[in-house]
């Protein structure tokens, strides 16, 4: 395997890992309004991701940083081309992060309510926008001969992209509901399962539509396999959720997220940013990549760091493995 192909794989893993992890974070954020009935239940949900959301978000920072290092052209074209959507994502991630940390720091009703609105909207919007962004990436956007995006915001809002956004939003909410069922105790746990069942059906319909469209449009043999895994995973997650096998349901909803993004990256390869203007102007792994020297160094660093990161992040989940119910939430001060 060529180094730049390996790095394409690694970047796909980083983005997919990010969506696997922050996927359920975003889902929890959405559920604070749709599932939780009162403030204590909202706090139960928020505290299921309390110790881990920040670590999950670093997957994004690493994915972006690794894209910068390994494929500067990909990074430059994508981030400057999707300027306004990325701005919105940034604003959401800023407000959301601050909301988690600051919400409980004052007792006033208005203060807490405002941050709770922020958590909901700033989870919902990125969950949608990331799907739309990756739909645009895989399908191709107007890119000129100088590798710069030449389209407008309207080009990024095609029905296909909106469908992609809706798909990730519902899929992440499903993933989050399954996670909530796994991590909570008491009444909210049972309702989380019921919610998961409904979101899962929605996600299944959207998966058939969006992933099917992606496969028909830009798919290949390998991406077809990913499509099958994604759909089977989703069906399995729904069955396990109904049976009350929460650990399995979460594993399978995670598998669905992984397979859905695997499909996107398999359909994309060997391009990294296809040009809808002229296929010759598409950015490919070969010409967007950094030098073999840089990729070699980064391989060593990633090879050393990744197992370590996986180990201590897994340990964190182990430390905070206990279910949380309303009885665990200390009274607000």
């Amino acid at each position, binding site marked *: 395997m060529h180094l730049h192909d390996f790095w394409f794989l690694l970047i796909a893993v980083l983005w997919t890992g990010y969506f696997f992890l922050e996927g359920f974070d975003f889902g929890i954020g959405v559920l604070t309004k749709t599932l939780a009935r009162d403030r204590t239940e909202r706090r139960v949900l928020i505290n299921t991701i309390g110790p881990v959301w*920040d670590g999950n978000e*670093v997957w994004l920072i690493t994915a972006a940083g690794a894209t910068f290092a390994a494929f*500067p052209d990909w990074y*430059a074209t994508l981030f400057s081309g999707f300027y306004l959507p990325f*701005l919105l994502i940034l604003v959401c991630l*800023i407000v959301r992060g601050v909301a988690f*940390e600051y919400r409980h720091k004052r007792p006033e009703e208005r203060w807490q309510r405002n941050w709770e609105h922020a958590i909901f909207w700033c989870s919902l919007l990125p969950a949608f926008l990331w799907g739309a962004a990756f739909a645009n990436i895989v399908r191709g956007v107007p890119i000129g001969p100088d590798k710069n995006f030449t389209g407008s915001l309207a080009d990024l809002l095609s029905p296909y992209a909106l469908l992609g956004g809706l798909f990730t939003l519902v899929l992440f909410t499903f993933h989050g509901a399954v996670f909530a069922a796994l991590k909570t105790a008491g009444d909210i746990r049972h309702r989380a399962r019921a919610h998961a069942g409904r979101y899962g059906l929605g996600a299944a319909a959207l998966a058939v539509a969006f992933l099917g469209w992606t496969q028909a449009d830009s798919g290949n043999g390998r991406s077809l396999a990913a499509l099958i895994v994604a759909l089977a995973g989703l069906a399995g997650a729904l069955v396990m959720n109904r049976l009350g096998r929460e650990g399995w349901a979460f594993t399978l909803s995670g598998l669905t997220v992984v397979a859905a993004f695997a499909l996107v990256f398999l359909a994309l390869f060997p391009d990294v940013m296809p040009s809808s203007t002229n296929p010759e102007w598409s950015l490919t792994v070969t010409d967007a990549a*950094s030098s073999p*020297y840089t990729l070699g160094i980064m391989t060593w660093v990633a090879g050393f760091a990744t197992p370590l990161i996986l180990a201590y992040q897994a340990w964190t989940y182990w*430390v905070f493995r206990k279910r949380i119910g309303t009885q665990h939430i200390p009274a607000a001060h």
Partner: protein
Amino acid sequence: MNLALAPETLARWQFGITTVYHFLFVPLTISLAAITAGLETAWVRTGKEKYFHATKFWGKLFLINIAMGVVTGIVQEFQFGMNWSDYSRFVGDVFGAPLAMEALLAFFFESTFIGLWIFGWDKLPKKIHCACIWIVAVGTLLSSYFILAANSWMQHPTGYSIDKNTGRAHLTDIWAVLTQNTTLVVVFHTLTAAFLTGAAFIVGIASFHLWRAKRKQINGEELGEKQRHQIGAMRTSLRVGLVVAVIAGLGTAISGDSLGKVMFEQQPMKMAAAEALWDTQAPAPFSVFAVGDVTKGHNSVEIEVPGVLSFLAHSNFSEAVPGINDVAAQEAARYGGKPDDYIPSIFMTFWGFRLMIGFGMTSFVAGLIGLWTTRKKLWLAPAFRTGENEVPRLMLTKTREMSPFLTKWSWRVGVLTMGFPLIANSFGWIFTEMGRQPWAVYGLMKTAKAVSPGVSQGEVLTSMAVFTLLYGVLAVVEVKLLVKYAKAGPDTDEKPPAEDPRLRLPSGGAPGSGTEREDADKPMTFAY
């Protein structure tokens, strides 16, 4: 939309606003992480509750602060691609590597272990909990090292070659990038300044509490049990802050001097601009005050100390220091264009340099005076010594205390000093980045060539307005919260988590089996 501005102007403003803002939080995060870790270690080792309360108190302020640092940091990474795409294409091969290393080797540490630290008080054994905050602290140090290595490469590119086909920089020697003297000196300077910042923050808040308690005593009010415990925690904190301020302040001065010498060699224009030294002089004077006229290429008003600039640049009082006009002419001859194109804003560099040194060193001097006057035993008559839970007297000599007027102002200056390093840091960065102009990467790429060609001025104006507004609102929220928690002081009624949790032996069955025992129903010690 097209404004009558150079394309890079708005992007530069946005980068300046977001970066200076981000860097208000960074140095506090770096230093408070380490100082909190030190305090927790003291608690773990001695078991004294005052250390526990100090840890919790500074930890809380640290967390309010790091939240802002983390979220504004994501913007920094994104905006290279969003606003500076041609720059990113040109330097990605070199610049991206330290950035990715920062994420892989530092950010994961910080963000994962901060979660464990916040939520883990009753879930982890004491020592492991304490190790978590140390790992966060090491993470912040590593992260500053990598990002400063990247910045140093923009100040002084090394370890690269230019690809003949693409015209882009290619990394040839990562070791050179990570260990060049610019990087090492800048890391030393930035970290010492960061510790000065955190130390001044602690000194300021501790002074506020101690002076408040002192005023109550002066007014004849009785202090309660809780207040005396708070004084104990604050007195310890004050001493810790003062010691760190003096060591870090000294380090900042020494590293600043080394950095100046490196810059005289690597970017003579920046240093000539810092001194508003228009023409090469031997020996060169240090300028205390100057009003320059760029169009005429000389200063209209000036106060100088002869020979000192030569000393700063070369460690002797006679050697020549190149002036702005001469360096500009050299650069124009080398890179093309007019000499004027190579002159940065003299006003900003000259005054930025002075404000950096002035504000930074004021805190250092305040720390030095504070360290002496609040001493516990050394050269102090027994009658003037104060107990652990008392506000220290400000002692000038063995038996001479400051007058009430001086005492009042000393405590007030102590409170004020917490803002000074923040101002110094901001001007330090404004100076070093504006002093490098017109270059984005010194000698290789001009800022005008670095912007995203596909991004319209309307888009940049939108994002700049959004960030400015959002950051403004968040600043108000953050400062109000900090003030609230700082004023409340340590919660001295809080008890440390009594016993080590049995990590390896969960109290109930396996997660999900539904067989947890009742004792698992106790509330979390910390919850969002």
